[in-house]
């Protein structure tokens, strides 16, 4: 236990120091983690820590990441991507595999080994690339989307690779393979049973597992989440979210599928669920920490002893690999008519080998496909190419992007135009606003944490998400950093003020429309920086007053003008009072506030006394036609100036 905590402390300290430094230097978090790993590797060597074991654990971060990516992709969107997935991704995988295999054969390797090498090196690093693209906000660009499609195809391609690699097994390597042993854990009885199934049985099991993910995702999560939400404990949600992802990982590993793919699928299934943003917010920290751990292990896993012995060969092969992959990607970019900076982003971002390469390598040595000597060198090449990736992104940032930025500015930015409108709280107040906005064609993201409420709304076909809108992480998941507008319509005035203050401070570009309980709450929101404040019962009270005047036989148009005048006076007074209001001083002790209030009351009284039925009062000020004496008066006034000028 203590050992585990010591190790955790070691990794955490390394990350906490290295990542902020790397971020400050503009290197990005991935390189920071990698450097932390390299720095740690001697220490880990002394402590005799099994880095590979930790890496296997940290690969769970990739699974979580793909789940989160799946959450962002609705099935419809995935279907729209099919050409890119099959065409672009398929060509990249097959093309790279074929060419690497040909080169390996030309260098004198047998075809089986060459094929395995091709498979290992054809993949790119989902973890590094997606993390970096997200961090730099490039994921939604054309190049980012293309990269994402290819990565997704690669994740899918791992499945047939894992299925067919055992067929390449070379009997002469069996002895070596036996030494690697069985690295599966306690589920070995179940494993043995699955191993014992016929080919058809295994295929059936695999399809069954996928079907289970889709069915459970579609039909079971909603009642389960509803059940969990009623307990009203935040950590339970995190536990449930983790249960889903861990469960999928275990299931997929059992049937021999890629857990990353399985969780991606589950994410897609849940993309339409109202718990989407809650899941995102809950899993986000796990993704970040586990990926960080993964990158640290990649850095720590670099065998500098072997590297220095074969320095020229390894570095040469790594650079050669990057150049080759870049060339193939560049060709595909041309084939698929990518433009400008997108072409560069696509080709540079995917030019490394990836973490699935590690998985394939351990699988290949375990199944007697690759001799250890080659596998160790490949491991080093894969790790080194990943280590160089952040530098490629850096090159893109510093050299490529500036050249194209002027041209790209001309294109309208779709993300900004489509920036979501967030409605926090879908009760009697927010609900009306949501209906108005959606009927006007805006996409809204509605957050509410009243579960009973949500069930009613869903029955009527509204799209709402479960979650406490006052949580910053949930706001983040809902897209606050890209939002154009947030409507804060929650009941609790205190929470409203806190939320408004947080948004105004952290996201000054987002317009905040806030619901206020009463006059003092308006002042508090004003002090918090909100400039669009709506008192929740004021407008209806004004209508009530108007109805009362009409009932007293006021002409409806007079009643309308009377209450309009009342509203104008009230708002004028509020605005003059708002600046003097101090949330920390009780209003009766705030002398400036009291004095201003008295002033305003006096003004109001004077105005009220003037409100007599005469053409010259405030209501009848318009509509006086010119009379002969008005014309004469005008002539008299203009007369002296005429005289003066003549």
């Amino acid at each position, binding site marked *: 236990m203590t050992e585990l905590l010591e190790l955790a402390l070691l990794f955490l300290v390394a990350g906490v120091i290295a990542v902020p430094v790397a971020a400050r230097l503009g290197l990005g978090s991935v390189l920071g983690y990698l450097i932390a790993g390299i720095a740690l590797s001697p220490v880990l060597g002394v402590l005799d820590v099994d880095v590979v074991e930790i890496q296997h654990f940290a690969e769970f971060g990739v699974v979580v990441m793909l789940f989160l990516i799946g959450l962002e992709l609705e099935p419809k969107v995935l279907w729209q991507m099919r050409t890119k997935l099959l065409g672009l991704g398929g060509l990249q995988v097959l093309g790279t595999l074929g060419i690497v295999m040909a080169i390996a054969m030309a260098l004198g390797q047998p075809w089986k080994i060459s094929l395995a090498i091709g498979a290992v090196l054809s993949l790119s690093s989902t973890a590094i690339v997606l993390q970096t693209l997200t961090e730099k906000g490039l994921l939604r660009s054309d190049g980012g989307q293309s990269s994402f499609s290819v990565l997704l195809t690669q994740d899918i391609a791992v499945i047939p690779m894992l299925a067919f690699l055992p067929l390449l097994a070379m009997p002469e390597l069996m002895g070596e393979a036996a030494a690697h042993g069985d690295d599966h854990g306690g589920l070995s009885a179940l494993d043995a049973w699955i191993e014992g199934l016929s080919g058809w049985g295994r295929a059936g099991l695999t399809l069954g597992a996928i079907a289970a993910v889709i069915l459970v995702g579609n039909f079971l999560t909603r009642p389960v989440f509803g059940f969990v939400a009623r307990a009203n404990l935040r950590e339970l949600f995190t536990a449930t979210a983790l249960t889903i992802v861990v469960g999928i990982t275990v299931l997929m590993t059992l049937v021999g599928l890629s857990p990353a793919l399985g969780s991606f699928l589950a994410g897609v299934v849940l993309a339409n669920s109202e718990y989407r943003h809650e899941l995102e917010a809950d899993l986000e920290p796990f993704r970040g920490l586990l990926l960080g751990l993964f990158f640290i292990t990649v850095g720590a896993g670099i065998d500098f002893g072997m590297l220095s012995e074969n320095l020229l060969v390894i570095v040469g092969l790594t650079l050669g690999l990057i150049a080759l992959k870049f060339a193939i990607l560049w060709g595909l970019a041309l084939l698929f008519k990518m433009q400008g900076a997108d072409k560069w982003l696509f080709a540079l971002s995917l030019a490394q080998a990836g973490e699935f390469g590690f998985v394939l390598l351990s699988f290949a040595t375990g199944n007697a496909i690759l001799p250890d000597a080659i596998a160790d060198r490949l491991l080093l090449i894969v790790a080194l190419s990943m280590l160089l990736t952040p530098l490629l992104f850096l090159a893109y940032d510093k050299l490529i992007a500036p050249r194209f930025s002027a041209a790209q500015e001309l294109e309208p930015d779709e993300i900004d135009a489509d920036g979501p409108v967030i409605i926090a709280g879908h009760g009697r107040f927010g609900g009306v606003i949501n209906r108005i906005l959606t009927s006007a064609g805006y996409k809204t993201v509605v957050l509410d944490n009243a579960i009973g409420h949500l069930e009613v709304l869903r029955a009527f076909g509204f799209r709402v998400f479960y979650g406490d809108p006052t949580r910053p992480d949930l706001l983040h998941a809902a897209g606050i950093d890209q939002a154009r507008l947030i409507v804060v319509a929650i009941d609790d005035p205190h929470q409203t003020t806190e939320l408004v203050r947080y948004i105004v401070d952290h996201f000054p570009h987002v317009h905040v429309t806030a619901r206020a309980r009463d006059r003092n709450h308006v002042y508090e929101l004003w002090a918090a920086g909100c400039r669009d404040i709506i008192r929740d019962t004021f407008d209806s009270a004004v209508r009530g007053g108007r109805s009362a005047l009409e009932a007293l036989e006021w*002409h*409806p*148009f*007079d*009643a*309308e003008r009377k209450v309009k005048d009342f509203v104008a006076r009230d708002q004028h007074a509020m605005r003059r009072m708002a600046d003097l209001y101090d949330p920390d001083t009780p209003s009766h002790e705030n002398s400036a506030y009291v004095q201003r209030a008295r002033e305003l009351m006096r003004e109001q009284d004077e105005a009220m006394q003037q409100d007599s*039925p*005469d*053409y010259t009062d405030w*209501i*009848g000020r*318009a*509509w*006086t*036609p*010119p*009379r*002969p004496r008005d*014309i004469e008066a005008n002539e008299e006034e203009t007369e002296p100036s005429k005289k003066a000028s003549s």
Partner: protein
Amino acid sequence: MSDVIVYLAHPGQRYSKVNRAMVREAAKVGGITRVDLYADYPRYGIDVEREQDRLIDHDTIVLQFPFFWYSVPALLKDWIDLVLEHGFAYGEGGTQLAGKRMILALTAGGPEGSYSESGYNRFGLRTLLTPLEQTAHLCKMEFLPPYVLYGSIEADRDTDVAEHARGYAALLEALRDDRLQTGNADILTADTLRLGEAAS
């Protein structure tokens, strides 16, 4: 018999002298429809279908209003803009108002003499009213000479105003009973009003 509808458009009725008197007298006339536009639509939002149905159901349309800046009050302008729609009042298939009669009953602030080339309003009242006359024409309606009280601001409540209001009621009755004879008159006033039979 003719179906008469009277549209009153006055935003400041509680300060009105003449129009309120006219409304009081007109209230005594039976068998006509009365609409207070500013009461029906205090926040605008005119119900176009409802208004078009009302027009279809009547054949004499009376627009009663104070003459503001040589035109109608804002809500009546909005009503004209929205209700006299293409395809309803004019244009292709826009024949719903054809053959109906339109008559204005307006109160003009300036004295009669001011509505002339030498007066401070510089134009005759009929010239100033040509936009409305043309509106009626485009809708294939007959434009009757308007019923006018000049100098409405200075008018004496007990004599001029009362007479004008009584004349207004008589005018509405005559319109209802199809016995209004306008002769060659440009403008109808309480003095010059010629009725087919003696007013009741």
